[in-house]
């Protein structure tokens, strides 16, 4: 996935000279995860190492976007985004709205998110619902290298600000061939990863790879795996169509359970497709605790056995 994101950045910078990448250590160092590795050689003026200041990176990116650039701001880790939240909520998300369309803020804030790499505190957080709750933002999470390239290209071309969360756990865990040629994947559309008829399993980001492992071991149960791809705006139609078919739903996500993305999915299903349900909807999620240090993270993260158990439970109805 790291190479796929790098390829998307390169492709978009070649395609549009207003695209710039800025962040901490993104230049000479190529980023702490090597996502921007080598780009500074080809774009010496457009890969910009900034001071260590997340508010400044996001705040000046807003100004850069207003001034005609397309900034792709990298925040080094999920847990460091929060100092930029005021800029995201008070400005980035609402520039179009508060200027009644006179000004736009086409920019991307991308950062590695989530656990599973035994990192320090503040380096393993999954808080997508926090961003999805902000009107005016789009929140995109790829699960595969192929999707990462196509979704990032779309995010950079989008006329509105996009939060692009990269599941660092699968940065180097999935190997697949990614086309060298240009392609985009539409933001706001979920992907039916595998069709099935008994249970709808909804996941995104790192939970997709884990869900595929579930499918390998689940035996006779026919599971339809939906990769949400975009958290906001959410593809409600694809979810509801699947629910009409299966009547059973399991949602797997890393973020804390309460007030999470899973809760929103459940709300939409029960508001609009309650009578198709054959069983209560099950969530397999992180718990409502601060993301634990590495020694406890395996208990926190949704895993194959927890998801398998949830699927078996909804099948009892």
């Amino acid at each position, binding site marked *: 996935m790291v190479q796929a994101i790098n390829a998307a950045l390169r492709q978009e910078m070649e395609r549009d000279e207003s695209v710039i990448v800025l962040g901490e250590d993104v230049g000479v160092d190529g980023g702490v995860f090597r996502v921007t590795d080598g780009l500074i050689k080809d774009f010496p003026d457009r890969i910009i190492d900034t001071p260590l*200041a997340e508010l400044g990176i996001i*705040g000046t990116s807003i100004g850069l976007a207003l001034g005609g650039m397309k900034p792709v701001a990298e925040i080094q880790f999920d847990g460091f985004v929060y100092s930029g939240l005021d800029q995201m909520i008070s400005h980035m998300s609402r520039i179009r709205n508060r200027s009644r369309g006179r000004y736009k803020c086409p920019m991307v804030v991308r950062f590695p998110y989530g656990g599973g790499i035994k990192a320090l505190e503040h380096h393993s957080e999954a808080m997508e619902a926090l961003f999805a709750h902000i009107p005016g933002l789009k929140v995109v999470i790829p699960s595969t290298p192929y999707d990462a390239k196509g979704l990032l290209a779309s995010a950079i071309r989008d006329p509105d600000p996009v939060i692009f969360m990269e599941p660092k756990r699968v940065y180097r865990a999935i190997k697949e061939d990614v086309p060298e040629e240009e392609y985009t994947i539409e933001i706001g559309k979920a992907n039916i990863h595998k069709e099935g008829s008994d249970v709808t399993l909804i996941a995104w980001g790192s939970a997709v790879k884990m869900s595929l492992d579930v499918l390998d071991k689940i035996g006779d149960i026919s599971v339809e795996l939906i990769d949400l791809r975009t958290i906001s705006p959410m593809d409600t139609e694809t979810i509801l169509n699947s629910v009409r078919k299966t009547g059973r739903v399991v949602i797997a996500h890393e973020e804390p359970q309460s007030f999470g993305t899973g809760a929103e999915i459940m709300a939409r299903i029960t508001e609009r497709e309650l009578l198709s349900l054959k069983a209560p909807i099950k969530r397999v999620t992180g718990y409502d605790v601060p993301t634990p240090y590495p020694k406890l993270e395996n208990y926190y993260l949704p895993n194959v056995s927890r998801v398998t158990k949830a699927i078996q439970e909804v099948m009892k109805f």
Partner: protein
Amino acid sequence: MVLQDIAEFSVKWLQILDENGKADEKLMPKLTEKQMLWLYEHMIFTRIFDEKAFKLQRQGRIGTYGQSLGQEAQVGTALALQEQDWVFPCFREHGIFLARGMPMVQYLQTWSGDERGAHIPEGVNMFTMAVPVATQIPHAVGFAWAKKLRKENAVAVVYFGDGATSRGDFHEGMNFAGTFKVPCVFVCQNNQWAISVPFSRQTAAKTVAQKAIAYGFDGIRVDGNDVFAVYLAVKDAVDKARSGGGPTLVECLTYRIGDHTTSDDAKKYRTEKEVDEWRKKDPIIRLEKYLTEKKILTDALKQEIAAKYEREVEEAVKKFELIEPPEPEEMFTNVYGVMPPELERQMKEAKGNAKQ
């Protein structure tokens, strides 16, 4: 042990026109009579508009409003700009809005709580007002940075108060500006009160101007009630930025004669005596004295100018009051470039509810 000095700095103070209307001719910027009258007219315009807006609030015809009374010399900064330059205001820059060409009707609409007013017309190069203190500073820096990267000849000017200098946005914005040497001018309207908190509670530093030095560029404190000093300092800063010399911080020492907003009562935290002292330093009175002395301004012209802007403000208010209230769709139409299906559903719901 004898320690070596490795850095030294001083902070300059600029006053050209004193409170009695006497100018230091050696320091006077090169201004034509027409330009001097432009400054005077726009200060009068600002005050008349401000008084009218204040009254409209008291009559319940607009919402909470923050007066600019006493801070009209801010228009000096507008004269220092070229059309292609951009300004990033906060919420007490009425003089800048009017001088840059923001239509009064729309500006009143904004203050009345109608978001349609915030659509700044094409050709008026300014950003919408920022309400969260200091948050606009990084935007101006990023904008100036974009102009530098795009090799476009434009300078960004950002306005903020003394309270803003306490916030991280100020630090991070100034730090980026210095590091990347962007064409940005920081105008601190130090009116000495952030609602009830005096300047001495914002910082232990003697001036705001000196903070620039820590970011690697120049800062100057000027008499913010002296429109010539405000103009000259900002003009120098803008020229420097335009020629690639990087950012400058201009601290305009002024005073907020009015309350913080129409929801505030400043009598609770400051004395009448203090306010009266500053009334004597009124930026308009001293300019009037100077221009009268120089025979640029006559009583007849004074009356003519006042009458002109009173008439224009009245006409704008009349037009503003004829505007129909917004429809509920207005909430939804500019959230995204393309409205997502869920939002469309909610918009239909809101429209339906509005009809009931």
